[in-house]
């Protein structure tokens, strides 16, 4: 069953929204939005500390600690996780899964180390993909730095290190509400990924979801703008997927 995952990008304890990971706008108190999404029937929540990598640390412990006392659906947290210690601290605050991106470039062993300890199913490989000419590259530090590594190669390098699922963000589509970058999906489809894939960026309608599913088998979809700006509710994305395997 397709997972509908509200994505909450956080800066300094505030829920914010960006377009192409730039030009951020303040939305409100993440705690209130998170609870609302759970009541609407969200399958999971994704919290991203979007300035963490720049400061070198994740600052969401407090928020996660509070929301997880009242929210009983899976919570994934990402941003600024540089060590096993960081990952464990987030799990001890109430996260169920950690999403790793920037830290994996500076320490190519980070995924192994974390998943050996907390289990493969709690480790999410977060990829920020940006198109340059006709190739997609894995970016880090909130879409600012280019690793120079193609997305499909990055997936291949990491998939056997102990990754339970992949979160693929299209930086170019992010915040546009114009649908996910389907060409990017076509590109990675050739690599035959056998673990769950969640897409994030631009998804704002059921049609956007169906278009993506035509290309590749996705198991989750992140939604932000259309929920935060209250144009849609979780139910609007659910109707036709109710009995969709």
């Amino acid at each position, binding site marked *: 069953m397709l*997972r509908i995952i509200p994505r909450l990008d956080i800066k300094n304890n505030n829920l914010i929204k960006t377009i192409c990971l730039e030009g951020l706008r303040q939305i409100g108190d993440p705690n209130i939005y998170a609870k609302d999404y*759970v009541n609407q029937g969200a399958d999971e929540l994704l919290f991203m500390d979007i300035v963490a990598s720049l400061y070198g640390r994740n600052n969401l412990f407090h928020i996660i600690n509070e929301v997880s006392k009242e929210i*009983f*659906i899976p919570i994934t947290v990402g941003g600024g996780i540089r060590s096993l210690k960081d990952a464990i601290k987030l799990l001890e605050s*109430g996260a*169920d899964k950690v999403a790793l991106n920037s830290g994996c470039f500076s320490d190519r062993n980070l995924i192994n180390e974390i998943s050996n300890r907390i*289990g493969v*199913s709690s480790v999410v490989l977060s990829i920020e993909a940006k198109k340059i000419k006709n190739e997609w590259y894995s970016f880090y530090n909130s879409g600012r730095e280019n690793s120079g590594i193609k997305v499909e190669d990055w997936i291949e390098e990491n998939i056997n290190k102990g990754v339970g699922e992949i979160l693929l963000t299209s930086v170019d589509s992010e915040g546009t509400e114009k649908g996910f970058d389907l060409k990017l999906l076509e590109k990675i489809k050739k690599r035959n990924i056998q673990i*769950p894939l969640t897409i994030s960026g631009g998804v704002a309608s059921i049609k956007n979801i169906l278009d993506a599913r035509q290309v590749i088998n996705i*198991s989750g979809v992140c939604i932000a703008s259309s929920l935060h700006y209250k144009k849609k509710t979780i139910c609007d994305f659910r109707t036709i997927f109710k009995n969709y395997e």
Partner: protein
Amino acid sequence: MNKKSIIINYGSGNILSVKRAIEYLGFEAEISFEKKKILNADRIILPGVGHFESAIKNLSFLKNDIFEFIKKERPFMGVCLGMQLLYSKSEENNFKEKGFEILNGKVVRFPSRPNFIVPHIGWANLNFEQEIVNQKIFKNINNNSRFYFVHSYHCEDTDLNSQKTYTNYNGFNFVSSVAKDNIFAFQFHPEKSSKDGLQIYKNFFNI
């Protein structure tokens, strides 16, 4: 002595969310790894995220105590790996280390097939066996309710005296809950399954 509900802590993940779910409902449970406390508990929860082999090694010194506890007919709940540990053996460690052998059957990996994504992560329906409807643990929970799963292995239960729910993943049917006497085991995570999941904890504490 004041009896307590114990969540067995053997170094696995998700213990905190189990405790928080219980406290949210207004019940109490203590996280513990102490033999004495476990033997004297009024109910036990064996949670679990992690690897079968390391879990069974960490728990081996408690094996007899858990047997004793169950014999006293007090409520016992196993969640995810905590369910799998109740069987005789698991493919996760090539069937080497023995499980608790409290339930009959073994733990096997999902089949390797093209487009069969493993781990199974996400929400899926429980299909009730006829008799399980009468189990108090499923009070106020409807057939076909959705629960949250995260697992690569599942239990092949061969026990004729237990009642079960089944769940379909990609056309493959596996045992998602087992109820037998005072033992309740779930492959899914009730503590991550929103209202219906909380209802299971509520029912467990009311047994």
